[in-house]
């Protein structure tokens, strides 16, 4: 903290208090003049294009990208490659910063034609509407089947960007892929699958119910090995020891995996003796966005099918 400046401000204030603006006036005026000069200088360095769609939710963004539309900007674009991975975010997409703390000024300066949000940003809809028409689309609805809802989202987004035909072929393609995947797996000796992500070296999230992971398992004709109750968003966080009562299952952890996990599991006789560890029925697959849309579902199926084929006979 710059105390000199603080004290000079203090003395300035005292002057101001006791003798009006007489002493500080010159300093203030010169500051004002310099600021004014800077303010009047022509704007420089302004880059970026205007128009386009700004997407404040990754599930919607990945769906748009999959439909061949490049959004003008996406929140937290810099983290995309860690959590969503595929489809990759095309190059000219602007990073809009945190989803929890929207940079309205930046969004407004892009002059988008349309803003897409999910219900979590509903409270900010009035502000966003001042920038551009805003559509609130939920990829998630506890009352509705996960994939059905997301297919609906694909259609709605396709209608927005005029890619209805493309969406139809793409959806058919995804459908066919899922079908092929389930046929390929049907030939194998299947086991129930437990999808999980390691949270730290003692806890996992396991997916069930209405989560994207669980739904993809079902579509591939697999049984979900986690049959316990899960939370509102289709997963629950449990201690790793809770996996002990699982019988003959295939355990698949979705990356990213914390660094110290291998050491902790290596030290654990409990983990070592788990049936699926003993029989080497465990492994990891590359990241799949757990709150994602159809592209994430497709990615998961495309990762899971060859993975299981390589492990099952």
């Amino acid at each position, binding site marked *: *903290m710059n105390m000199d400046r603080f004290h000079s401000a203090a003395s300035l*204030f*005292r002057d*101001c*208090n*006791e003798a*009006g603006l007489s002493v500080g006036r010159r300093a*203030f005026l010169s500051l004002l003049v310099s*600021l004014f000069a*800077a*303010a*009047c*200088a022509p*704007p420089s*360095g*302004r*880059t970026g294009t205007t128009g386009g769609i700004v997407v404040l939710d990754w599930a919607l963004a990945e769906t748009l990208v999959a439909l061949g539309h490049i959004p003008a900007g996406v929140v937290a674009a810099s983290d995309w490659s860690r*959590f969503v991975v595929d489809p990759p975010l095309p190059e000219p997409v602007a990073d*809009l*910063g945190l989803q*929890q*703390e*929207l*940079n309205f*000024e930046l969004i*407004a*300066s*892009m002059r988008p034609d349309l803003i897409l949000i999910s219900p*979590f940003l*509903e*409270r*900010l809809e*009035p*502000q966003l509407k001042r920038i551009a028409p805003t559509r609130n689309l939920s990829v998630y609805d506890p009352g509705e089947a996960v994939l059905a809802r997301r297919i609906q989202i694909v259609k709605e987004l396709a209608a927005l960007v005029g890619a209805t035909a493309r969406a139809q072929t793409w959806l058919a393609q995804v459908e066919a892929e899922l079908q092929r995947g389930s046929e390929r797996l049907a030939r194998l000796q299947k086991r129930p699958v437990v999808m999980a992500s390691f*949270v*730290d070296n*003692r*806890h996992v999230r396991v997916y069930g119910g209405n989560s994207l992971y669980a739904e993809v398992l079902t579509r591939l004709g697999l049984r979900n090995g986690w049959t316990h*109750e899960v939370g*509102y*968003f289709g997963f629950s*966080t*449990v*201690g*790793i*020891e809770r996996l002990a*009562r699982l019988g003959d299952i295939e355990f698949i952890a979705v990356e990213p995996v*914390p*660094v*110290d996990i291998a*050491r*902790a*599991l290596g*030290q*654990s*006789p*409990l*983990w070592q003796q788990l049936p699926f560890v*003993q029989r080497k029925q465990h492994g990891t697959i590359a990241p799949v966005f757990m*709150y994602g849309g159809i592209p994430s579902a497709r990615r998961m199926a495309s990762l899971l099918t060859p993975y299981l084929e390589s492990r099952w006979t």
Partner: protein
Amino acid sequence: MTASEAGKTPMLLLGAALLAAAVLSAIYFAAPVGAALAGSTAVYDAERLLLVYSSLPRATIALLGGAGLALSGAILQQVLRNPIASPETVGISAGARLALAISSAFFPSLLGFGRDLVAFAGAAISTGIVLLVSRRRQYSPLSLIITGLLVSMYCGALATVLVLVKDRYLVSLFIWGSGSLSQLSWQPTLDLTLRLGVASTVLALLVRPLSLMELGDDTARGLGVPVERMRVIAVALAVILAASVTSAVGMIGFVGLAGPAIARLSGARRFSTRLLYSAVFGALLLLITDLAVLIVAAESAAFLPTGAVTAILGSPLLLLLLPRLRGVVSGRLPGDGTMSTLEQRRTSERFLPCVVATVMLLTGLLLLVGRLPDGAWSLAHWASLEQVLSWRVPRLLCAAGAGGLLAMAGFVLQRVSANPMASPEVMGVSAGAILGVAVTSFLFPAMTSPLGIYGAAALGALIALLCVMAFAVRSSFTPERLLLAGIALTALVDAVIGLLTATGDPRAVMLLSWLSGSTNGASLSLGLIAIIAMVALSALALLGSRWLTILPMGVVTARSIGVPAVMAQSLYLLLVALVAAIATPIIGPLSFIGLVAPHFVHALGNFTAQQGLLLSAGVGAVTMAVADTLARTIAFPLQLPTGLMSMLVLGPFLVYLMARRVDYTDVGRGAGG
């Protein structure tokens, strides 16, 4: 208490605790132990495996962790002569947690082998800061606890920023932070046993000199105890004990406070007895809580970390223990200079316009600062007038209005309670507002309307206010009690939020941004409301400026010159509550502005109560405007929450103020405080 009673109480308490632990253990362990004894023919016996490698190490680490934390608390209470010192209240746990959070976000490879070292380093730094600040006050109990809790809040805020920026969908920091006792092997238990064993051996060697410190520094010195060195060694030992536990199982709230408290309650007089009892009660306490959590939560989908549960159960304990604090924070208030003479300097006619003009000029200049889409810094030009008006003005008005309100309330509160460390944020009213929103958004997930959210906030603030007021009336407005009551409430809120967020629910992330004082929801009308409220409530507060001049001199003096002290205090508390209910939803509960702004004003010079109030509001508005400008530009394109930014900027200043400016003196109420 007679000798026989003193002998019975600990046995009674101990018996009760043992019985509870035994009953719960029987409930929890009966089936698996029975099955294990019966023997199973299956190749894989899940129940036996769980019993041997999870349940038993978990119970053991609960006992060890509880004992370690309680020992740490008992040592701290002894050498700091402070009945509510504990790893949580002097900043050990929060420092360890922050250090581990930083390393897991930026240097994850450090955690593999140096986990404990990282935790020690963090705990040592935060505790060092707390002790350095309070050393000048001879570790005055209140200034120590207040500093400790503020440093803890600060560490918590930094960890929140990390989560916001780095930890998008991984909630590991939260789960770890809220203290789950889940175990997979005996390894962590063995590691912790080793560490606690070494620390306890050292402690055993120090029991005698540490016991002597009870007699006061001078007497102990006379008896040949190197008091200063011994205090440093003992605190280091306490840090090692608590940081080892934190590193192994995360934040376990308030066991370090409760263990020694029960030990005292059971009449343990000698330090060595107290250490033993503390360890035993701490161990049993954590075991009982953990077993209860295991039995209740069993197979449910909700994740219930034991550490968060103890924190929720423990924060009211802090309230119960407050009457045991004997030290009083008193002394020079900010702007006290003119108080010795009762003469009210007439406020110059130029004063108000001058303050208003300066505030408007400074905030106006801040409006010009921004960044272009490519990240370059820029000053606004006429072409971007619309951008400035529609985006910067509303949030700046909101921030400045809320900042001014809180600062004004802080000034009022510090005067009314004659306490230089009072402020609406630490009074717990803001925390109540957040709790209202948290509970509502989790009970009614479908409700996202702003009206509902603000309603929940107001309701929460009101309930918190009523609680604190009831407490205030009972303790006849003893200012420092009020303050700590608020901090205890804030700790409770922290625990509840930690519990809710540990579930990994995406709503928790949104709640977190709300908690961190986001001005994202700012609209021009909200900004205008904030500004108008600031002006109106300041004017209202000025009506009683004579009271504000006289009340800091104490209730008795005030009464003797005809000021209705209790009524004045009640009216002003109501005003403060109103301020908190308006300002918290805008800027969050963690800005520190209400605490710091009056001290800034003090640094500017000596002013009358009237001038001080106006200046506080002005300084608060400008400071918050600066925080808002920083929040919007500093990490572009990321935008940070304004309230959190203000806390990060003001936090170090606060520590500086506490170390240098505010003059505390300890006035022992009873002998041997």
